[in-house]
């Protein structure tokens, strides 16, 4: 089920809220678990059992990982088992077909690809259960003895299918004892409305432009048109994904949870290093804590550090999908980050800020140009076109003018929404006009966003979620 659907808003969510607040504390996690399972099973019921299997594995290995209790090799073996199970599932469901097709191509084989659909959210929940077991092994958290609590953590529907990757240590205490409050609920509502609006009003709208440009006859485009398409995608993926994270965080608050932030205005960055501190934070910190640092991080010399960085970014790319373009995308950022670490950041520091922003944005947009095309031929053609090797004119007058004039207001709104302007404005208004802002302006804006989003959902002509396949 999608958050941005009338079924979720007016049937599912209203039912969860009633049940959750009607039952006593002791049953609240059970309510969340049951509804989360329904939420997960909505489109494809059979993979619920796979997820339940993962929870059982995490529960048992988690208990056995406790090095304070077991002084033998048992904790290590358990942790390795958990890693094997989770990575095995990921490899099997997400990557087998990729390996088969490429082996077929490379070695002229004829292996039939498996007809598997990717279990929704598997990339997210595998990482979450794994982080739990590893943290237990490291002694950073205590093993969760209450199966219900652990199951609630893994299945928690706000973050189940598209993140953020909520680490067990973040909500360890909240699982057992959290406090729902009116204040948290109200903040949750605001956050959810912002996320819904980002997704439904902004991302879908500009996504339609990208869709139109990328499905147009590419030989009729111009260099400007190709760039407009990629810029549209740049906005779409940010508002789509960060909107989803906002909704998840907002929903969490409604049920008393506090998740960590996942985005922090990534497009204001003036270097790629900064960009990755602001983009999909839960993923990059996961890779930092469970891959980069265990590999030795920067503690084993410069060469080793470079290898580690490249490895982490290759994996980050590959995590996004079983496709060459995602790997290239990861390696692309790995190389840039490496350069920045070694010399570029120092050099950039001497340049004016405007130039640094242009530098970062250009590399980010080019990155999305890699990310957007899973079909390698399309990817190559798009790159040729972007850099003027596709034989396209710089500007074709007709369709460029049409796309631009039809979307110019939207693009201005997107630019403004990509910087913390509204946030700062809100903070200023809140301090200056506390009561009218809190009691009138904010509720009206929130209601407006909810209703406008519903209007867009009602006409529902264009509502695909981008971050679903991962």
């Amino acid at each position, binding site marked *: 089920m999608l958050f941005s659907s*009338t079924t979720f808003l*007016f049937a599912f969510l209203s039912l969860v809220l009633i049940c959750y607040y009607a039952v006593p504390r002791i049953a609240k996690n059970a309510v969340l678990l049951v509804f989360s399972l329904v939420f997960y099973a909505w489109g494809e019921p059979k993979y619920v059992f796979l997820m339940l299997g993962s929870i059982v594995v995490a529960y048992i290995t988690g208990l056995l990982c406790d090095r304070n209790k077991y002084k033998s090799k048992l904790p290590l073996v358990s942790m390795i088992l958990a890693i094997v199970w989770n990575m095995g599932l990921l490899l099997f469901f997400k990557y087998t077909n990729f390996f088969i097709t490429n082996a077929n191509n490379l070695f002229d084989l004829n292996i039939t690809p498996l007809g598997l659909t990717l279990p929704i959210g598997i990339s997210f929940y595998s990482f979450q259960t794994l982080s739990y077991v590893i943290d237990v092994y490291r002694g950073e958290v205590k093993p969760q003895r209450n199966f219900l609590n652990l199951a609630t953590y893994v299945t928690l529907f706000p973050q189940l299918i598209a993140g953020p990757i909520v680490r067990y240590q973040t909500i360890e205490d909240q699982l057992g004892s959290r406090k729902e409050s009116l204040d948290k609920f*109200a903040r949750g*509502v605001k956050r959810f409305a912002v996320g819904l609006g980002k997704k439904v009003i902004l991302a879908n*709208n500009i996504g339609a432009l990208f869709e139109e440009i990328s499905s147009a006859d590419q030989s009729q485009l111009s260099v400007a048109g190709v760039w407009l398409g990629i810029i549209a995608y740049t906005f779409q993926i940010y508002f789509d994904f960060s909107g989803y994270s906002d909704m998840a965080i907002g929903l969490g608050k409604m049920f008393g949870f506090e998740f960590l932030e996942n985005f922090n205005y990534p497009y204001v960055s003036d270097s790629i290093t900064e960009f990755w501190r602001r983009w999909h934070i839960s993923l990059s910190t996961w890779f930092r804590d469970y891959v980069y640092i265990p590999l030795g991080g920067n503690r084993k010399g410069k060469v080793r550090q470079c290898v580690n960085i490249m490895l982490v970014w290759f994996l980050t790319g590959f995590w996004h999908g079983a496709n060459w373009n995602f790997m290239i995308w990861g390696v692309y950022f790995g190389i840039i980050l490496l350069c920045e670490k070694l010399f570029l950041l120092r050099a950039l520091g001497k340049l004016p800020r405007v130039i640094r922003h242009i530098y970062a944005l250009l590399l980010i947009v080019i990155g999305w140009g890699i990310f957007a095309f899973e079909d390698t031929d399309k990817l190559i053609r798009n790159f040729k076109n972007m850099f003027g090797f596709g034989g396209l004119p710089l500007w074709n007058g007709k369709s460029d003018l049409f796309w631009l004039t039809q*979307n110019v207001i939207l693009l201005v709104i997107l630019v403004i929404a990509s910087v913390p302007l509204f946030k700062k404005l809100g903070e200023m208004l809140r301090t200056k006009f506390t009561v009218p802002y*809190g009691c009138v302006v904010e509720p009206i804006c929130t209601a407006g966003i909810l209703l406008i989003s519903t*209007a867009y959902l009602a*006409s529902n002509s264009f509502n695909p979620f981008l971050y679903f396949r991962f």
Partner: protein
Amino acid sequence: MEKKHRRIADIIMAAVFVIFVFGFGIALLVKNDREFSEMENRNLAKKPELSWDNIMEGKFTSELESYISDQLFAKDALVSAKTDLDRLLGKTYMNGVYLIKDSDGRLRYVQKYTENREQLAANAASLNEFAEKVNVPVDFMLVPNVSAYMLDKLPAGADCDDQSESLDYVKTLVGDKINFYPMLDKDGFSENLYFRTDHHWSFRGAQKAVGDYLVKSGQISDAGKLDIPFGKTHEGFLGTLYSKAPSSFAEPDEFEFCTAEDAAAEVEWVNEGKKSDSIIDSSFLDKKDKYAALFGGNFGQVRIKTGREGGKVLVLKDSYANAAMQFLMQQYSEITMIDLRYYHMQEKDVSELCSEYGVDRVIMLYNLDFLNEDRNFVWLT
């Protein structure tokens, strides 16, 4: 912020959300389900059946989703709000339709036209082949759509082809057997002869075109006899283009038509076995699609005995021709209308019908968009 005030603000915010989520949810439960949406011209989803089998097959969830989105409270109002929000964002092109202001400053829906030379050539070839088979005069009235008159008002860079070029192209395609009457007269015609919210022309457009045709083809010397009074006007006509992007700012068209009661001696829907003395099916006047009041829509074969003096004609037609029929009826004694979309694999082909009915003229009456897209002309040959 003072604690009390913050609490009030929180209560308001929570209330907004609770009213929003539960308001739509409860409305869904208590309001009566609509069976049919005139706006979308389709049957709406019904409540899904809750059974184990349905759940296991995944049918229940998908049916529930369509039920909720179809039966959403105030759906039509929300959808038009969406159109106007898009317009606020500066979008003037949605779902294949341009929403632009016409010279009177009123909102007008203009359908995008993309020339398809292959289809035009194929259809013209079918018409030519047919014309060779019949030994009576064959006239071809080809009517442009409203975009032909509004190219200069379309949004910047709009990719809408110029219909006058297509008319010129078709002119090169029609054979000697066909007398071609392209109905593009920029002096006499204007966007005002078309509906603002529908893809058809109005009665006045049809009246003007039929008059021009009859005069140019030498069948009458002036179009005075077509000057029949426009009797009834039904207001509030929001047509098919409106449904593609409904805006609250759209002004409904007036659906005006001539008093038809005494117009025909007999109208026969041949395949349906239905007869009437009027070409107007007034039951449609109270519905959304008022244009369908003409003949009740489109049918394979309709025969009209007008009760007037004049020749017998066979009209190969689309829905534009329905509005023209009133005026052709002033000229001929008998009219046979053939709509190739519904005249397939019949006992007799159209040329056989011509000899059986003893028609002394064939009129092809099509709008350009139809000739450009329809694939049923092959049924002629």
